[in-house]
């Protein structure tokens, strides 16, 4: 079961959900601290997340060739799961546009990404259930 799940897109979508959730919290904190004196606006860098994810995906593909094909990586060595640990390192102070409109717009885009990842993941799980239960 582990290899079925880990060779699909479900772990990738899982990391996307982790990221969008963490980013939502950071952006909400920005809006809450709008009037706090001395507060610097923070954000989670989307490009850095995309880069980490790309590296993890290619690491996963290379890892598969060493072991027999079809056998997925184990729990600890799965590179995709390590993307979650890198989330702490992509927090940065965003001084480009600190207006409230910008924070809300970023939150909106983040929410769209989040909902889309959830919808795709749900449809993958439903397809797996169809395969398992043999009931279309």
């Amino acid at each position: 079961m582990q290899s079925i799940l880990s060779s699909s897109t479900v772990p990738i979508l899982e990391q996307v959900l982790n990221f969008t959730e963490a980013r939502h919290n950071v952006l909400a904190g920005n809006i809450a601290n709008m009037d706090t004196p001395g507060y610097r606006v923070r954000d989670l860098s989307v490009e850095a997340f995309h880069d980490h994810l790309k590296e993890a995906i290619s690491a996963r593909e290379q890892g598969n060739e060493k072991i027999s094909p079809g056998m997925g990586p184990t729990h600890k060595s799965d590179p995709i799961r390590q993307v979650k640990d890198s989330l702490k390192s992509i927090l940065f102070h965003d001084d480009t546009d600190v207006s409230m409109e910008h924070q809300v717009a970023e939150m909106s885009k983040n929410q769209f990404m989040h909902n889309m990842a959830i919808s795709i993941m749900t449809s993958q799980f439903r397809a797996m259930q169809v395969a398992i239960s043999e009931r279309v």
Partner: protein
Amino acid sequence: MSQLPIANLSQLIQAPMTTQMQGTSPEIAESFKSFMLQSIDHVNSMQQDADVAVQTLATGGDVNPAEVLTAVQKADMSFRMMMQIRNKLVQAFQEIRDIRI
């Protein structure tokens, strides 16, 4: 994900088709079998296309979200259609097997 149900289906087709239709016309059996295998390949490639599209979207590639969702839905629907065909074949096989001579 894309390997498991497809393996089920191809095993299923090999067994009943070759035993039943040998007496009548092997050409029909051969073309039906190749048709089925082609369809399975097609479903599998659609699944893989959908997987690649989702991966590109998750890593911030230049892809339209609507296209990704359409690809995922198409793969899903063609997989279910294949599943339904497989169920019907199993059912037909069981009915024929239950014929008492």
